[in-house]
């Protein structure tokens, strides 16, 4: 078995649990999930299903009300462990504006490594490398507020890459971007996983993004309702619909044409439809 990076065991999380006991509904309810090294996991669910809370549990921003979260054997308890965990698991948030700290692109990318106490020369090297890996090197001296949403988000990603964490959690990184920005960011995320071997957890509500993952975890009302490869998950169209989720368009088309379930790629879908039409292309 591969090495586990993030391990969640029967995790329940209730907002403001200390104040009035357990009157609030748990945002995450008895969730167990393992993330393995080098994996690309997509967590899918509609608004308020607890997926963002799950993300914040994974890098010790929140501590579980019940159950345990361990990152490479470190339990997420207390300030000190939290700090250690965040050196292993980085995070990129939804709104690029609210996570950029500095007024110059390269200074912002340097913020993380500076916090880690890395040598100045090494920071310079990491910053250049990180910016190149998200194709933002040419804009290193620009001001973040003059960049497009997709570019800002790539700067934020570079900021985490420069910290050289083994794993990065993306909390709906494309939710506020236009289609072209979304494409840029998704391409960058896939490159991180394939070329640099960084473990990725992508929280999203876009089906087309989830399709690109190795494993899809579907959440609703704080619990995991389904997980498996994208093909397995998206063949259960009725189950997804029941929980108010869409299916990728290609899967839906093939399903309604009776061409079989679990078709997730556009090319595959084209092939199937052409075959049905008698190869008349």
């Amino acid at each position: 078995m591969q090495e586990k990076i993030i391990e969640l065991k029967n995790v329940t999380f209730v907002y403001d649990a200390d104040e009035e006991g357990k009157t609030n509904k748990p945002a995450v309810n008895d969730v167990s999930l393992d993330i393995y090294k080098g994996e690309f996991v997509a967590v899918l669910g509609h608004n308020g299903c607890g997926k963002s809370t799950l993300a914040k549990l994974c890098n010790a921003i929140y501590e579980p009300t019940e159950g345990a979260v361990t990152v490479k054997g470190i339990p997420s308890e207390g300030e000190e462990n939290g700090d250690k965990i965040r050196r292993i698991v980085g995070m990129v948030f939804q709104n690029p504006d609210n996570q950029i700290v500095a007024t110059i692109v390269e200074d912002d990318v340097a913020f993380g490594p500076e916090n880690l106490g890395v040598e100045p020369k090494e920071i310079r090297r990491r910053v250049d490398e990180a910016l190149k890996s998200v194709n933002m090197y040419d804009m290193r001296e620009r001001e973040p507020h003059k960049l497009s949403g997709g570019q800002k988000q790539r700067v934020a990603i570079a900021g985490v890459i420069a910290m050289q964490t083994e794993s990065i959690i993306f909390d709906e990184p494309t939710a506020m971007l236009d289609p072209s920005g979304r494409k840029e960011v998704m391409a960058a995320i896939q490159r991180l996983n394939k070329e640099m071997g960084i473990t990725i957890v992508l929280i999203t509500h876009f089906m087309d993004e989830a399709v690109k993952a190795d494993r899809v975890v579907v959440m609703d009302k704080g619990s995991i309702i389904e997980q498996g490869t994208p093909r397995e998950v998206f063949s259960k169209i009725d189950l997804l619909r029941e929980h108010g989720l869409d299916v990728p368009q290609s899967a839906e088309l093939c399903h309604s044409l009776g061409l079989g379930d679990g078709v997730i790629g556009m090319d595959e879908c084209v092939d199937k439809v052409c075959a049905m039409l008698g190869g008349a292309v």
Partner: protein
Amino acid sequence: MISDITFGQYYPSKSVLHKADPRMKLLLTFVTIIFLFVCKNFLSLAVMAFITVLAVAVSGVPLKTILKSIRPVLIILVFTAALNIFYTKGGEVYYEIWKIQITEKGVNTAIFTIIRIVILVVLSSLLTYTTTPTDLTTGLERLLSPLNVLHIKVHTLAMMMTLALRFIPTLVEEIERIMNAQKARGADLETGSLVQRAKALIPIFVPLMVSSFRRAYELAFAMTCRCYTGGEGRTRMKQMKLSVRDFVLLFICLTACAGVIVLNIFFEAVI
């Protein structure tokens, strides 16, 4: 109108002033501003004016941009000039009507004050034009670091300043968005009495406050995620080093200050 604010905005260029060490620039600006108030006659003020003109010329920042920074203080200039003309009395009386006297001393003081304020504004905005906010706060942090002995958290203050500067454009954008949204809902921001217009601003500031707090929380999360734990154990990518250039600037500045003192001694004080 809001996007007109140029104060505190960096003007990218490769001039000597841009390349100079921010610590030196901060220190020199501070010293020149102090000596601006040491000036007692027009000759010593001229030395300061000369230094300022020289700095502007060398900086590579267009004159238009510099003049823009004076615009916000125009009202203050007019106001101080008027007060000085009418309330400072002494010397030859140029003009008299009823109880109001315009005297030599009044006019001199008015001109003196105007020049002084203009130099003050130009010098301080030149500092922000030629230094990135990050360099500025880092420079300030280094200069004030001796205060750490007094348990004043200089790093925290510098970080707060950086964040404030970082979020100015974001919040300006936000205000514009909220204003447009409220206008689209029929809010009237331009007409009516002063009280009515002030009241019309409430629906703009309430959403702005709410969203700012939300931003602050998210930013705090994001900073925690990037392992920010305060100033301890932090390193810097950009190291600061004094070069010959900085000492040349220091020399020019000190010469000018010496000139001011000499001229103050040998010539009659006007103010």
